[in-house]
């Protein structure tokens, strides 16, 4: 125990003297939490729309004004030539073309039926999909309005229509921040845990101080604990900082137990620290460690369901996501913070993260050699 005390004292002194690292540990959570949730937003606004109106009727005018009034679209051209509108798509000025055919009004009223064309620039997939979907909804609503008028005017029985009224559980206002912030907290903890641990140990290899440690009678597990504990503590500190920021800035208060949240994060940190340790045992220079850690953390984050939900991934990708500790961390963060899940709900995740922690750490300890 006494040995570990000396190791911890040394480690903390070094970390607190490392001004750039200390600064980054404060800045990273602040910047990530302030910028990412606001910028990385799925809600698409400012979709550039080109309207080709061959009808020039009251009805077509009304449709266009309904669309522009929604606030999602920016009308950049209004004309009667499809090829001109298409040129706008080609030059990337327009994202969508809405073509209203001639006799739009007449057919709509007389035949009770009409078609419009929507052409989508699918280069930006998300924007195209969502833009198309928004436009569909607006046209459908418009369609219903018109039906209502007919029904009143002509006293016909209304055609039964299934209307979908969604209720958004756990996030009633579909507040995007509420979804992103817990995920970003998960990423923060992952980065601090894996990068800093890996780099710290490899730095000792690079400078040569590890040689001096290896000729001492110090036990392997003492040395490793002396390295893991400081970053475990730092990880929890940064997590608390992030949690405070998300409360102050976004007013997010975890619905579930704060204690449970910390228990999970504490365990999760052990698994990412283990990953960092494992990487360090395979690297000789900080450059190698940085590159390898970056590779894994990037894959883990992209496959962890932060931006794209794991449920909608193809089967093989789901397997990758299941072998990824970050997936469980993001899920549990959202479960506890948004749903108020309890211990029994997150137990399966807890077990998996524990297994990851055991796996990474035992592999790292096995591969860490004091002698060559």
């Amino acid at each position: 125990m006494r040995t570990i005390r000396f190791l911890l004292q040394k480690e903390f002194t070094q970390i607190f003297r490392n001004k750039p690292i200390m600064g980054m540990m404060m800045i990273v959570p602040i910047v990530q939490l302030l910028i990412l949730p606001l910028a990385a937003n799925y809600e698409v606004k400012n979709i550039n729309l080109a309207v080709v109106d061959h009808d020039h009727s009251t009805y077509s005018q009304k449709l266009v004004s309904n669309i522009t009034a929604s606030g999602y679209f920016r009308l950049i051209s209004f004309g009667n030539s499809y090829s001109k509108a298409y040129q706008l798509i080609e030059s990337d000025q327009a994202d969508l073309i809405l073509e209203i055919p001639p006799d739009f009004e007449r057919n709509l009223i007389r035949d009770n039926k009409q078609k419009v064309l929507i052409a989508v620039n699918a280069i930006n997939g998300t924007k195209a999909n969502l833009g198309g979907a928004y436009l569909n909804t607006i046209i459908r609503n418009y369609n219903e309005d018109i039906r209502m008028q007919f029904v009143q005017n002509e006293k016909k029985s209304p055609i039964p229509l299934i209307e979908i009224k969604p209720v958004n559980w756990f996030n009633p206002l579909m507040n995007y921040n509420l979804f992103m912030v817990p995920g970003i907290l998960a990423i923060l903890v992952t980065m601090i845990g894996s990068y800093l641990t890996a780099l710290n140990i490899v730095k000792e290899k690079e400078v040569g101080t590890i040689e001096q440690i290896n000729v001492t009678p110090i036990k392997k597990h003492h040395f490793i604990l002396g390295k893991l504990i400081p970053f475990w503590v730092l990880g929890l500190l940064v997590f608390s900082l992030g949690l405070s920021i998300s409360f102050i800035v976004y007013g997010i208060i975890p619905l579930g137990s704060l204690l449970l949240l910390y228990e999970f994060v504490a365990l999760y940190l052990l698994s990412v620290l283990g990953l960092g340790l494992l990487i360090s045992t395979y690297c000789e220079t900080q450059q190698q460690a940085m590159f390898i850690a970056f590779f894994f953390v990037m894959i883990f984050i992209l496959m962890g369901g932060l931006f794209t939900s794991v449920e909608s991934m193809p089967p093989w990708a789901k397997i990758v996501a299941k072998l990824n500790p970050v997936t469980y961390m993001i899920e549990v963060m959202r479960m506890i913070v948004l749903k108020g899940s309890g211990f029994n709900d997150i137990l399966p995740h807890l077990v998996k993260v524990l297994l990851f922690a055991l796996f990474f750490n035992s592999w790292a300890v096995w591969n860490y050699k004091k002698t060559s």
Partner: protein
Amino acid sequence: MKETVIKTEKLTKKFGNFIAANAVSFEVKKGEIFGFLGANGAGKTTAMRMLCGLSTPTSGKAQIVGYDIYKQTNLIKKNIGYMSQKFSLYEDLTVVENIRFFAGIYGLSNQDIKDKSAHLIETLGMQNESKKRVGTLPPGWKQKISFSVALLHEPKIVFLDEPTGGVDPLVRRQFWDLIYAAADKGITIFISTHYMDEAEYCNRISIMVDGSIKALDTPVHLKHQFNAKNMDEVFYELARGAKRRE
């Protein structure tokens, strides 16, 4: 007859097909200053790392202060000090913090740590530098602190791997004063070096060529044996035949 503190028999280390140290056998007595010479790549560092328990030999036997090099490495490590050619203190810690850390992990008591660091700083005349970070000190100072730190836990043997590389002649002279002082206390000094004048300071020296020891005796006897005026000539005579080059 003084007791034997290092005894190796046909100690060998192979890296794949490459034999870094080939059947190295020698003995070192207590309190001796034993010089370990050889050209770059001759296998000095490999041999020294095996003796310190940093590297496991491929074959052969060795005993360090009576402990077996394969099975009792932890007991060996308690009884040896080591200072490598790479500077091995923490540059972002102060002199006192470095002393405290290394003394602490060798298991010295708090009282011991206090007394020893006070004594060490006084001996080195570093009262003004003790609170400075090691990284800000000149190389000569660092070398002296390194050596003193390697002696903190009162080891029986100190291994010095090219300790005086890159320091000026004056500091080297001072460094050797520290070495003699340690040897006078009965500490065995095992030192590798490229400086032939330093070789003359040793009680006995061995010269390694291509992984094997080609000569081992006192400097006076070696000069006589090779009919040479100085150690430079002895070394040149032996190293000339080396096939390995770095």
